[in-house]
């Protein structure tokens, strides 16, 4: 992933090509063709079409289902003035922030550190449980958490009342469910990151008199920074796409308490039959995802100043 010389070289560039200068020849274009075609047919085409649908008056049923036409900025105008959309955007931010950025990363990190230091049997047991939770299909995870937190579920039995905790704290429970099911992935990514931190560097810190926390904060975390950022972005993308978990647990409710954008988009398109407006909301999700994806590609690219193994004479 990180070449020793720190320079980026796409495979299509000859090694003699100057850095930053891209050379495409006939063979290169020919080799790129299948992938490009696939990308256009399967991805760019549909997404482009969805963007087009977003500015039409297509509906799921009725006359405009077949004979829709371009309506200009009408849908956009509605979007900007839609209180529910802004509310949904805010809920999406809360969901991503609380579950992906804070929850999954911190818990994933804690698990990764635990995995590094724990005795073998504990490591095996916890590792297996966490990874299984990640491997479970979203519908299983969702039902599990629904049963756990709704009236008569484990949580209400434990609290000794018959309250519906899922109904009382919907966003919290949904975030917890997402953390529960994604932490395994985060743990795997961060564990491999932890292994790249050279033991001697940490020992050098110990020799200087740094406490465990100081070593973790001043040495381990900064050295792991690229892995952590990569992980945050990946988990954010995964959570953004995790439609089924929330839909099965709450379907966006109660009220609109967990109505994040993917769900709101689905609602508009397939429950209120407003396919065009649903598509436009979906487009917003695509744009958000694209921003994160772009950041991810930027960050995971090797940089000149990045960490390179020491030791050998440069």
């Amino acid at each position: 992933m990180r070449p020793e010389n720190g320079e980026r070289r796409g495979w299509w560039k000859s090694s003699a090509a100057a850095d930053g200068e891209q050379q495409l020849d006939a063979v290169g274009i020919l080799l790129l063709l299948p992938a490009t075609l696939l990308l256009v047919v399967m991805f760019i085409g549909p997404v482009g079409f969805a963007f087009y649908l977003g500015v039409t008056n297509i509906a799921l049923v009725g006359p405009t289902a077949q004979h829709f036409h371009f309506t200009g900025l009408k849908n956009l105008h509605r979007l900007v003035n839609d209180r529910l959309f802004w509310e949904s955007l805010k809920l999406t931010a809360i969901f991503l922030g609380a579950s992906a950025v804070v929850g999954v990363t911190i818990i994933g990190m804690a698990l990764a550190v635990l995995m590094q230091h724990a005795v073998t049997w504990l490591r095996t047991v916890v590792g297996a449980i966490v990874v299984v939770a990640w491997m479970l299909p979203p519908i299983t995870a969702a039902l599990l958490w629904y049963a756990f937190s709704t009236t008569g579920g484990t949580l209400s039995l434990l609290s000794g009342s018959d309250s519906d905790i899922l109904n009382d704290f919907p966003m919290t429970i949904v975030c917890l469910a997402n953390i529960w099911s994604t932490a395994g992935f985060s743990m795997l990514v961060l564990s491999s990151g932890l292994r790249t931190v050279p033991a001697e560097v940490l020992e050098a810190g110990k020799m200087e008199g740094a406490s465990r926390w100081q070593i973790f904060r001043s040495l381990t975390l900064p050295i792991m920074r690229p892995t952590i950022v990569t992980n945050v972005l990946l988990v954010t993308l995964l959570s953004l796409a995790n439609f089924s978990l929330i839909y099965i647990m709450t379907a966006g409710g109660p009220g609109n308490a967990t109505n994040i954008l993917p769900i709101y988009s689905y609602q508009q398109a397939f429950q209120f039959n407003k396919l065009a407006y649903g598509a436009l909301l979906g487009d917003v999700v695509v744009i958000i995802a694209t921003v994160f994806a772009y950041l991810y590609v930027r960050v995971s690219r090797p940089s000149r100043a990045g960490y390179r193994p020491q030791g050998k004479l440069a």
Partner: protein
Amino acid sequence: MATVSIEQVWRRFGPHSAVADLTLDVRDGEFLVLLGPSGCGKTTSLRMLAGLERPTSGIIRLDDRIVNDVPPGERDVGMVFQSYALYPHMNVYRNLAFGPRIRRENKAETHKALLEVSEVLGLSALLDRRPSELSGGQRQRVALGRALLRRPKLFLMDEPLSNLDAALRGQVRAELVRLHGQYKITTVYVTHDQVEAMTMADKIAVMFAGRLQQAGTAQEVFDNPVNMMVATFIGSPPMNILPGHLSEDESGIRIEVLGQTLRLPSWASIKGTHASAQQVSVGIRPTDIIADTLADCTGPRARIDFVESMGAETFLTLTCASNKLICRAPGRLRLNVGDEVGLVLDVNYLYAFDYEGGNSIIDRSGQAGDARPHPTKGVVTHGTI
């Protein structure tokens, strides 16, 4: 400045003993080299001194204070790691200042001391560079500087030169000796390279298989090895080991080797418990054999199998009475593979080891210092090549 005393220290990993019954003292200001092949326990010993590893049993004292349970940060010990272990995300300045910052030392003083140390080590121009932008030699000096800024009582170095190329190694070796002379910090230095050990050490401690074999000055270890392992590990090319027989009568010790009987000088005696007549392994260094082309040589004759010309000297691989041995001859010598030569062994530097255990049999304590312009020859005396 500190003295170190290690008493009967063991370090076990499961059933395996990495360090077995190590007892060793380091005097104040001394430069001790722990020498041995990979896996002999020298790095584990060093890590126990650093506090990165706990002894399974035994006592480690630093300045008469038992430090077995003292964490590494509180031992006033500076360490240079084999990989240098610089903090990759910090520039040189922050690498050097990390320790003082952690220990909450006065910032202005740290800055001053830091500039001083970087001046001494020639790092002044590199302070804002990242480790990845430094050469091996520069990284190594940063690691040294970081350990120096600790103002340690004890300096520990784990094969600090092994990642440098040959030319740089010689240079840094001299640098380290100079720094040691300047700061007089007690130093324990781990290496598997005997040249580093011989050139830098006040005292060499040779380890094999977790056990300390011998500790002494470079010359002592070279001239009077306690057993065959030490004898063959130190010196390059290694000491020749040949089957032989040792006997003693009223006129002194006689050794039969390569079909010839040699009489050892009068200072030699047999160490306490050893039998006065027995089969032994006879050791002689390649430098203590003279290969002689003269026809009147009465010594054993050998055939040349291989000639390694090093310019100033030539190493000959020989077969003599079905034994293989190596001997040093002057350079610019016209010798060819297949030629016959006569051998003259220097009886002053003839060693005999217990055939079974490999312990040295001959007591050499009576041997006077050697001012040899020419080696004393065994049986015959005549001109060399």
